């Protein structure tokens, strides 16, 4: 009898060991659900970006759930607020991976935050698609489990400055940047075109993060005779700069970068913002693709969330769509290894909000196509010009 019981126990153990890895290989999956985690700045000034990106994730998830989920499993979204504080980003990512036990990660706060959290993500091996702040460190060198949707800040600035330089030959240039990593990136991109095109830079300033009064900076800009101006602020700073220029009765040809390419910015700039140029890799809401996206979003999010939509909603949507599609291709029993392999095989995935997304063997960056847009304050929109 004891022999039979021992044999049965042995058999049962062997069976459990045999099926164990398949059933409990990776966390975040039950018979009915798949968990996807995210950490974003939902409070603090950059909440404008984090909230919008999370709405994009929610739209893609709601869309997939409405279509039956991923091979029958509904997607559950676990969102943590880091307040744009790096220590809290690390804490948040550890929490969603170790406590909530999500299957995959998406979004991941700002550039400094995602850089800081990279060792945690790499060590965990969890499939991750980053979309909020595409900085080179995230894909150079490529990490096995981390994919980035977007375009680099340097490339964006280079594209914008090249466009403005070609359109305004022989003009005097001015630049102002923030005194942080973001500002350094903007300045590096700008400097590379200055050297290549021998631009005549007559004003170069930088400001402390959080500065709100730009009266002396813009007075210097005016005094320098700047004709083409790269406003290297993010959101509120660019508004303050343009309004200051309006007060000083000058209107140089002005370019801004994509973090500030959002419609409420134009409303606040008023006539001062009319005609400013911006560079981006997502579609403007004024175009057919943008309008179609808003129509798609309407039934899937709350009224308050609908108001919080901006360009970051599109980047979030596209990244979530790519991730969901990769998990889906893994069939009934998705694993981390399969999801990562399928992400790598991503080829020309259409999201409707930016150019098709592709990765490849050793390629973890989608390298999105850029376009230049111009502000039209009458319609409070940005319209493509190239």
């Amino acid at each position: 009898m004891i022999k039979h019981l021992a044999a049965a126990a042995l058999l049962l153990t062997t069976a459990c060991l045999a099926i164990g890895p398949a059933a409990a290989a990776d966390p975040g999956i039950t018979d009915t659900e798949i968990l996807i985690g995210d950490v974003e700045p939902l409070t603090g000034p950059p909440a404008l970006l984090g909230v919008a990106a999370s709405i994009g994730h929610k739209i893609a998830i709601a869309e997939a759930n409405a279509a039956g989920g991923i091979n029958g499993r509904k997607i559950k979204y676990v969102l943590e607020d880091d307040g744009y504080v790096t220590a809290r980003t690390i804490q948040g990512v550890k929490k969603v991976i170790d406590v909530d036990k999500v299957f995959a990660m998406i979004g991941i706060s700002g550039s400094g935050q995602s850089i800081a959290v990279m060792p945690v993500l790499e060590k965990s091996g969890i499939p991750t698609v980053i979309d909020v702040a595409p900085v080179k460190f995230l894909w150079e060198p490529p990490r096995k489990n981390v994919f980035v949707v977007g375009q680099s800040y340097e490339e964006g600035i280079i594209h914008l400055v090249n466009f403005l330089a070609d359109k305004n030959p022989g003009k005097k240039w001015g630049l102002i940047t923030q005194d942080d990593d973001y500002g350094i990136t903007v300045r590096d991109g700008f400097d590379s075109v200055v050297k290549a095109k021998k631009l005549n830079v007559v004003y170069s300033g930088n400001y402390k993060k959080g500065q709100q009064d730009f009266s002396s900076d813009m007075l210097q800009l005016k005094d320098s005779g700047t004709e083409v101006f790269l406003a290297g602020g993010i959101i509120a700073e660019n508004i303050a700069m343009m309004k200051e220029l309006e007060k000083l009765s000058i209107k140089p040809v002005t370019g801004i970068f994509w973090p500030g390419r959002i419609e409420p910015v134009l409303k606040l700039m008023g006539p001062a913002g009319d005609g400013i140029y911006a560079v981006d890799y997502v579609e403007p809401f004024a175009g057919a693709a943008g309008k179609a996206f808003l129509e798609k979003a309407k039934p899937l999010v709350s009224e308050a969330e609908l108001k919080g939509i901006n360009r970051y909603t599109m980047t979030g949507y596209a990244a979530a769509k790519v991730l969901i599609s990769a998990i889906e291709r893994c069939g009934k029993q998705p694993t981390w290894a399969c999801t990562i392999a399928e992400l790598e095989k991503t080829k020309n995935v259409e999201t409707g909000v930016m150019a098709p997304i592709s990765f490849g063997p050793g390629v973890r960056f989608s390298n999105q196509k850029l376009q230049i847009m111009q502000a039209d304050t009458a319609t409070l929109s940005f319209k493509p010009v190239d």
Partner: protein
Amino acid sequence: MQYLVQLLISGLAIGAIYGLIAMGFAVIYKSTGLVNFAQGEMTMITAYIAWTISTTVSGNVFVVAMGAILAAVLLGLVIERLVMRPMLGEPVFATVMVTIGLAVILRSAINFIWDAYPHGLDIGMGRGIVHLGSIGVRTGQLAVIAALLLLLAAIWAFFRYSKVGVAMRAVAADDRTALLMGISATKVHALAWAASSVIAGIGGVFFALSYDLSPAMFQLGLKAFPATILGGLDAVLGSGLGGLLIGITENLAGGYLGSGMKEVAGFAMIIVVLMVRPFGIFGERDIERV
């Protein structure tokens, strides 16, 4: 010359805002001996309330002004009653830490109650540009300079001639003796918080008129704090003037030394002044260090 005058006018305008917030710091310090590190956040909340009134109730300037003042009074009283009064008798360090905690809560409240977008406070005035000769100034900037000067005069008269003002000075000088003379220290404290909230709130509303609202506005408190130290932590009128000095210094530094120096200039100035007069330009000598 025109360059210098433009810098001075812009400096006076932003300095007047710093001055108003700095006066808020000083009113609380003078009455309670406490530095309120949530002053910038209280300024921001009042400005957001003014914006909400303008967009939901009425954009009429008087309605917005009265609503914002009432809201600021209420905010000050609620904070004093619910947060600060229970801390009476506790070490100063603990009480100061409570104001830091309060600052974080109020800062987060902006995103919970409102949103992270910048907003313009449009009440039909303050945004227009007037030209003084060839120098452009927003009407809101001129108005805030006038408001600061008016408030300086009003507060001087209040502390000098009104019963309540004298009672506040008595509590600040020696609260135990004031108690023996029948003055309620708790009422004086509550009044100080309400007054501080209103004065700083006026600064916030004027800032929103000239520069817009955003969740980063709380940083005005950090900019106004050097003005208070410069003018004297216990000198309400001195703090107002300290704000003007900081604003002008910042703008001149930004205009002549380079844009990177702008934010540093105010702090560099207080280091120099404090080395000579540790109690500030208009402060009293016996400041207790916390």
